[in-house]
């Protein structure tokens, strides 16, 4: 096999793994959109916020230290202890559940029945708010997230595959972190599907997604389900935040992964969990291959920023509801 062909395969594999990470973010969107019709732009900032909180709790930072110092003239910044990873993750989850409750209680409960665009704008406002709160709580400096995930390329894969090509091929370079992320994403999706299929709350969640009125009339509490859904989105955001944070540090740019997830959603359809995953994989492979084959040699690189959007746009022209989205039926 020629080395070029093998490099192509390597690009595809890496694209698949990047796609898994996109799908992870897109999943959070789909969960909320299905259950409440809210298109949650804040999903990316939720990932940032949860990663910030995790990093802050682990290193024993005092929340709002900067603000307290500015008001009272004190000089505090750390409690002076380090919290183990598992406990920190649980604490962060508790924070995300409280956040979910607050969002439901103070914002979206008052916006029930509003037009979707108003709800969307509210989530953009929420994104700004949460970003500001995250910065106020934990400071805006770049943090490293050391939760014990492996880093760097996998030597094992490299050794095992180096014999495939000629002399100038050194084996596939695959990031260990990406492999872990893939496994975690698969477990998460399996868990979510099991939850929504086999538990009482999961069934209630699907009922709400189907029809609010009918769900209300059989005694399902919409408020509870919405808090539950936002909490689940918080959990997905935390996982995505850990993966992306371990990859490139916890910083503002983490919240931009929401923008990466949007074309995935368009491609897969806003209402479909399998769609989010397949869409993520297509976008991941597509943009890496395009960059490798056309972008870098002919267009000066950095095509990854827009390729996904243009692909999704062209695709939507032919199939307006996405790959797996519910068929849009319009009546007058």
């Amino acid at each position: 096999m020629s080395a070029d062909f093998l490099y192509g395969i390597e690009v595809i594999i890496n694209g698949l793994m990047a796609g898994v990470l996109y799908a992870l973010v897109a999943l959070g969107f789909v969960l909320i959109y299905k259950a409440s019709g809210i298109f949650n732009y804040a999903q990316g900032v939720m990932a940032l916020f949860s990663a910030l909180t995790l990093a802050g709790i682990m290193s024993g930072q005092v929340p709002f230290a900067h603000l307290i110092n500015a008001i009272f003239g004190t000089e505090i910044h750390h409690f002076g202890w380090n919290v183990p990873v598992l406990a920190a993750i649980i604490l962060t989850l508790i924070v995300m559940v409280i956040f979910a409750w607050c969002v439901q209680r103070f914002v979206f409960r008052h916006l029930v029945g509003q037009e979707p665009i108003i709800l969307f704008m509210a989530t953009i406002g929420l994104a700004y708010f949460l970003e500001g709160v995250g910065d106020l709580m934990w400071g805006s400096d770049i943090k490293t997230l050391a939760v014990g995930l492996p880093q760097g390329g996998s030597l094992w894969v490299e050794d095992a595959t180096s014999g495939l090509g000629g002399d100038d091929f050194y084996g596939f370079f695959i990031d260990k972190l990406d492999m872990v992320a893939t496994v975690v994403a698969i477990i998460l999706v399996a868990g979510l599907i099991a939850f929504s299929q086999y538990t009482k709350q999961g069934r209630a969640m699907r009922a709400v997604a189907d029809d609010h009125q009918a769900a209300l009339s059989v005694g399902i509490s919409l408020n509870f389900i919405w808090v539950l859904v936002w909490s689940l989105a918080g959990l997905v955001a935390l996982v995505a935040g850990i993966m992306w944070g371990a990859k490139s540090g916890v910083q503002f740019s983490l919240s931009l992964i929401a923008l990466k997830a949007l074309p995935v959603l368009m491609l897969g359809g806003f209402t479909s969990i399998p769609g989010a995953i397949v869409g993520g994989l297509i976008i991941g492979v597509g943009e890496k291959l395009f960059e490798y084959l056309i972008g870098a040699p002919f267009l000066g690189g950095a095509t990854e920023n827009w390729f996904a959007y243009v692909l999704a746009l062209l695709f939507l022209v032919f199939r307006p509801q996405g790959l797996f989205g519910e068929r849009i039926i319009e009546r007058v």
Partner: protein
Amino acid sequence: MLYREAGDFKTTYVADSQTFPLKLDRIGFWVTMAVAWLVIPFVINDYWASSLLVPFLIYAIAAIGLNILTGYCGQVSLGTGGFMAVGAYACYKLMTSFPDVNIMIHIVLAGGITAMVGAAFGLPSLRIKGFYLAVATLAAQFFLVWLFNKVAWFYNYSASGQINAPERLVAGVAVTGPSTPAWAQYLICLFFVTVCALIARNLTRGTIGRSWMAIRDMDIAAEIIGVNPLKAKLTAFAVSSFFVGIAGALFFSVYLGAVEVGEAFGIQKSFLVLFMIIIGGLGSIFGSFAGAAFLVLLPVALKWLGVDVMGWPTDLVAHFQLVIVGALIMFFLIKEPHGLAQLWRLAKEKLRLWPFPY
């Protein structure tokens, strides 16, 4: 009874269909115009021009443009920043390629070029609707910014990748470049705002504006009663992009002078203009102004309050600003989803009856 319509009789059709049917509104409008044109240019200084008035006027044009598309025609667009970049780069290329032509003509031409680009990116709107369209317009945003970053022809192969506005005169006074007096910056922006607002107001209450609103309210029904959706949607995209392009050209040439595309016309700009029309009021020209004023004023006011009054460090104030802007947006959407324009309408209702309750 500060605000009244009693005794305000109309005897002609022209009087009946004018923009401000009430005498008090007309007086208010002319007083505002007189102050804006005759008083402010003489008292303006650099600080007021560069931090408040010029950005307010430019954002008002952009907000009017987006309001035509989103508020009147119902097509949500997140590509405003990209279209502003088209206007800015078109203006730059025209300014440097044809230095002898008047800058005013260049700015209008830049708007025209943006209109064409906007119409091209509006084509998918015939198939894609709602959120899918909103996300699809992000394609325009990212693609255009990438294009202006990568293709060196657009920035005349300058080493820094920035574009810098050369000095251009209007009637003997510099309006672009570093030596522009504050009042000249202000007046050229005011001129374009006035013209754009007049055009927008008259378009939106004519045939074309009515066809936009029909599409917004229910596109299938509109099609059945004979509104051509292709024509209505594409004209909305074109007219909207025309205004946005003018705003972008002014933003680059008059206000900033030097621009780096990702920084000045990134996705944040798209959201900012969208916030303006949401807070101001969808489908209202007055709302575009109110929203632009509010969001230009807010950061300045917060910075003054935080840094100068409270004495906090600037980064802390910047974080607080995010929190407050976010909270205000949510608050507004909960309390008054139709924006400042609706508040103004309600206030007028109250004033008509005041001081009697009925």
